């Protein structure tokens, strides 16, 4: 039988030192033996490295930031669809998920599929809701409290022991040993990310992560645990290794069974010396280290496409332990003519 060919649009081509997942996702897709792909890159900025990787990305279009509104994004996608006849879109960045989840039906009307969590799944896993989330799904989470005023800092000693973590609504996390330090971090974070600021119990242990794919009916299609080996000054993994950890897998399957999670996800966990696992964050999308899972035997991007198109999905229960990823940087060579064409036409 002839292999089907899909036109797949992928965002997150910013393969920088704080990488988006686009390029590793594409590598996974290209390795599929069961379908062929034409990759349409969707880029926000004109220097996203993926745009210039012509062996991976067949054609790139610039799209407006989600901040310019759902309508503007959809109008642009409609145009791209008229040129490329898209079958599927994989949004890979946190900031665009809200827009794409909200636009599911409109995309379907254009005959473009997505495979994303529902708005409810997306909203309930926000950092500020972690306590409720842990309680609802029976997962240990560090005690968290949203605070909105410096006055609340004095009262923290009733519920927390120092040190504790001071986190921003979207990004940033600092360890504080004294109320004075909390105060400093509170000011810094609230100025940058607004209120509330989240105070979180500091759990001592090792940070471990799981990449997973849920089919939307409660089944876990892929799940690979990994430990970061080296973390850059931006807090991003520069190297990681797959590990054998049945407890993590079970926790993951359990969560996906209960939430009926649909799409890719990453669980960030802390494993304590007592072998307890605390969930600290859920990223509602495929993480940038996805290619490690592919190399270890679970091609998550491929499985995601298969799920979306009702193809047979392999039963991924195995993966190779001890597979490693090591990020590196590489200077691509571009030309001002490419840059010019992208700048003027928004296409390349």
């Amino acid at each position, binding site marked *: 039988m002839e292999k089907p060919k899909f036109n797949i649009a992928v965002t997150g081509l910013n393969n920088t030192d704080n990488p988006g997942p686009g390029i590793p996702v594409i590598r996974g897709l290209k390795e599929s033996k069961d379908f062929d792909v034409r990759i349409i890159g969707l880029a*926000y*900025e*004109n*220097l996203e490295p993926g745009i210039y990787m012509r062996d991976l990305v067949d054609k790139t279009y*610039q*799209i*407006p*930031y*989600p*901040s*310019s*509104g*759902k*309508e*503007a994004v959809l*109008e*642009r996608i409609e*145009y791209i669809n008229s040129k490329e006849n898209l079958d599927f879109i994989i949004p890979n960045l946190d*900031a665009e998920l*809200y*827009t794409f989840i*909200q636009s599911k039906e409109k995309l379907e009307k254009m005959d473009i599929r997505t495979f994303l969590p529902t708005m409810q799944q997306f909203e309930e896993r926000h950092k500020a809701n972690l306590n409720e989330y842990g309680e609802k799904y029976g997962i240990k989470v560090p005690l968290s409290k949203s605070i*909105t005023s410096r006055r609340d800092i004095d009262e923290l000693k009733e519920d927390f022991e120092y040190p504790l973590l001071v986190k921003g609504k979207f990004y940033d996390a600092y360890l504080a040993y004294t109320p004075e330090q909390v105060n400093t971090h509170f000011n810094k974070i609230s100025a940058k990310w*607004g*209120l*509330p600021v989240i105070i979180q119990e500091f759990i001592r242990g090792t940070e471990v992560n799981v990449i997973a794919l849920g089919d939307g009916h409660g089944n876990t299609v892929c799940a690979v645990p990994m430990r970061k080996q080296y973390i850059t000054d931006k807090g991003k993994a520069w190297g990681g290794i797959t590990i054998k950890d049945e407890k993590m897998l079970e926790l993951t399957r359990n969560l996906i069974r209960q939430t009926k999670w649909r799409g890719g996800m990453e669980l960030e966990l802390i494993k304590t010396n007592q072998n307890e696992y605390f969930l600290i964050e859920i990223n509602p999308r495929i993480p940038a280290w996805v290619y490690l899972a592919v190399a270890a035997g679970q091609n998550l991007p491929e499985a995601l496409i298969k799920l979306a198109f009702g193809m047979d999905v392999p039963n991924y229960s195995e993966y190779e332990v001890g597979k490693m990823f090591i990020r590196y940087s590489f200077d691509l060579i571009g030309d001002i003519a490419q*840059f010019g064409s*992208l*700048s*003027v*036409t*928004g296409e390349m």
Partner: protein
Amino acid sequence: MKKLDYERPILNKVNAGMPDKFGMKTKTATLSHIEEHSVHDILKEFGSPVYVISEPCIRKTYRTAYKAFSTRYPRVQFAWSYKTNYMNAVCKIFHSEGAWAEVVSGFEYSKAIENGISGDQIIFNGPEKSKEDLERAITDGAMIHLDSLDEFYFLGELAQKLDKKANVALRINLDAGIYPQWDRFGFNLENGEAWHALNRIMLHEHMELVGLHTHMGTYITAVSAYAVAASKLADMAVRLFRKFNHSIKYLDLGGGFATKNTLKGAYLPGADTCPSFDDYAEALTSALLGSELPPDKLPLLLLETGRALIDKAGYALGSVLANKRLVDGRRATVIDIGVNMLFTAFWYEHEVLPTKLNSEQTENTTIYGPLCMNIDIIREAIQFPLLQKGDAIVIPRIGAYNMTQWMQFIKLRPPVLLIDEDRKIHVIRKKESFQEFNAHENVPKHLK
């Protein structure tokens, strides 16, 4: 030979790596007509700038909101929030749709009476109510919402002197999980202050407790906050019933619904994140119906929605005064609408729309108002098309607060027009005149 259409020559710098919308053919929206009237003609006839309000839009929005709540809860009443827009014509439209009046000063109270609202359909809110205001409200049987204990004692004295029973509701502030939590108005629920005050009202001979009121904040996009607030007020009502066997007449959930305007600093535009009336209604009424309130004695649900009912119906129309180039090469466009007539520019990224486009080209532009002061900025940075001096612009969704918080600074306030359902234009507030304005002043003899 016919000549080609002209557009200004422009040179846009491409910022490497930075978001760059050029060449992406994002369309600039235009707005050439309001309720079938061309913006150009309106400006020609009534001068620039000018406010325009659409009556059909008000009625449509009101009916949508009313339907969202009344199909989910048996007893719903809106009260028009005067401070949001107290043009008499606007108030009368809301009243004709069935809305009561919610006022926060003696001045607004007088307006409501003038607009034909009877005292028993006036909700009297706010921290400042004078002796005369309160006496009138007691006599009229208005619903007086207490803001402080001092006010409680003051009202009690006055009612006793008049030998009348005042209709009283308590303004309550509570934690509904939103930020910031407004705690400056009314009595706090969580620390017991509200319950304490309610007990005093219940025991007061000259007061009749008719309602519980909360108003959590403004531009609230989290519908869940209304569910929390509604169930907290419902619990309070049930508690009152248990202790005093007293059923309150209404729960007033205030206002605070968001609109499609985008707040400064918001990542996603308001049009994408603003919940619908149905979303608010679903959360709020589900909480009430799910509470322990007895189904046969459900209190009236009062709503004081202001912004969400009027914002969309208002437009500011103006013209380009000048274009200039700032030192850093950025373009600045000066328009004749400033923060004096667009107070909401301080917290919204208002859309500024041309009426027509000669080309798709845009430039990063700062839009200034006409005032001689540095804070007069309508948009800090906007991709804006190339307009020439005299070209018309429209700022949509400005119906809330701008026609009440406007400033008379260095120039007089412009006229306000209403387009009615037959698309007829009425001047509902004429342009202020120098004579009228000056007549208020008095120069002492020695300076004459």
